[in-house]
């Protein structure tokens, strides 16, 4: 029920994100979502893509440091307060969120979560009948 997120290490250097995006595009890989985390001297680009294995292969061939990480992608109603309810379930169970990013479209919002305890997080979400996206649905 988890999805595989791609993480790419980037030096803080103009044009590096373009190269990642261009490489993926040239190989017919679509991006569903991404987020950029940055520190003073390097960044980590996190992406949800249509074909993770192929993306790893083509990015490595272009000398990028790439890894995949399992994350949870859930879907909730695009109305005020809906995410708060879900995050409350996780907090009650002491699940810590290392990072998350989201996008909303029409009546649905999609949230990518990297919890400290993936298995427990999934159990909690399932117990509360939250809608979890799978790689296939994406």
């Amino acid at each position: 029920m988890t999805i595989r997120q791609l993480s790419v290490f980037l030096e803080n250097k103009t044009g590096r994100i373009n190269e990642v995006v261009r490489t993926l595009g040239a190989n017919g890989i679509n991006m569903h979502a991404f987020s950029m985390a940055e520190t003073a001297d390097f960044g980590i680009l996190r992406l949800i893509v249509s074909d993770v294995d192929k993306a790893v292969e083509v990015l490595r061939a272009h000398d990028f440091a790439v890894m995949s990480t399992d994350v949870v992608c859930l879907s909730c109603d695009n109305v005020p307060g809906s995410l708060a309810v879900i995050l409350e379930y996780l907090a009650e169970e002491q699940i810590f969120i290392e990072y998350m990013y989201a996008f909303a479209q029409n009546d649905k919002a999609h949230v990518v979560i990297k919890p400290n305890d993936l298995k427990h997080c999934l159990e909690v979400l399932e117990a509360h009948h939250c809608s979890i996206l799978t790689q296939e649905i994406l």
Partner: protein
Amino acid sequence: MIWNPNKECMPREQLRELQGKRLQKLVAYVYHNVPFYRHKMQEMDLMPDDIRSIDDIVKLPFTTKQDLRNNYPYGLMAAPKSEVVRVHASSGTTGNPTIVGYTRKDLAVWSEVMSRCLSAYGVTREDTFSVSYGYGLFTGGLGAHYGVENLGATVIPASTGNTEKHVRLIRDLKITGIACTPSYALYLAETVEKMGVSKDELSLRIGAFGAEPWTEHMRQEIQERLGLKGYNLYGLSEIMGPGVSCECEEQNGSHIHEDHFYPEIIDPNTLEPLPYGQQGELVFTTLTKEGMPLLRYRTKDLTSLMPGVCPCGRTSVRMTPIMGRSDDMLIIRGINVFPSQVESVILGMKEFEPRYMLVVDRINNLDTLQVQVEVRRDYFSDDISAMLNLKKALSDKLKSVLSISADVKLMEPNSIQRSQGKSQRVIDKRTFLVNKE
């Protein structure tokens, strides 16, 4: 203990006489057996008879690493191939490796000088001694190995790698001494701590550390963490291998085995000999070698020679710790920094590729040093704090080795040019303005 008091404590005048005799014999030997030296001497209008005492050594030509490469593989060998019983090769980062051949007598001399070193550290027949230099073409492993055997202690040929197993052997076999690089000693200390072994469970008391430059700071740290006394062991394959010089219990300068290896200090630019006490490039002449004897070999190592009798009783001259290499020293904030020091730290951390670039700059009148390294793919993490910890671990280690802080910059794979030579590992952006009145 002094292994060979006759030689190690010989009165200076007597020693100079011995050195003079050996030099005369050596020069005649290479003149007749090595075309390279014969041609050089003929060009300088020099005959073997012109060498009458050790003072005449300054008349002789120098030998460089390039000469060894140009004469690859056996061009500088003086002994017939049938007399050569072993060959070692030093790592060549560029071009040909340098090949050194040893006769049976050369190996005996090597064991002798290595035994002198071990005795100076206090090793006896009762000790169990682990040799953790690499065994193979590199001279470190076998050189130290036969010295331990010759002395009569028990040798454990641990070589490098499989450090956890090594720690167990050190504990279970009650190993009392170890020969390795100082950076390996630090790695060993780390492994001991990681395994939850207390240093009180170990019987280590003597460490012979060499093959790379190290600092007094590293000595203190190794001594503290492993509970032993650490001594410098110096050598280079072109001259013999480990055992050319060693510290004694005073830990104050390394005694050169001058009856076999005659040291000089020269100005690396003018090539003029410098007096005792002045820092310059160390030059060796192998007074007794048969296989591949060398005249005035330029080591590129920067040091100075300390005159005077040591409190230990040895009369042989001592060399101060190697300040670095004449070909790649950087002075940053007044501190001598050598790329080789940075290299040894990076090589000691499995998380990084063995490649780096040093960027030196001067910002607001303060020198800055940036160390660029590539994180190995397997150690790249999606977790930012793990990446920052990795960066901090490297900068802490660099600080302890270099004595100055360096800014570590983590780079993408293959973004650092593969090293083609020393100069390409350093970008020095500083411009020094000279005021002219």
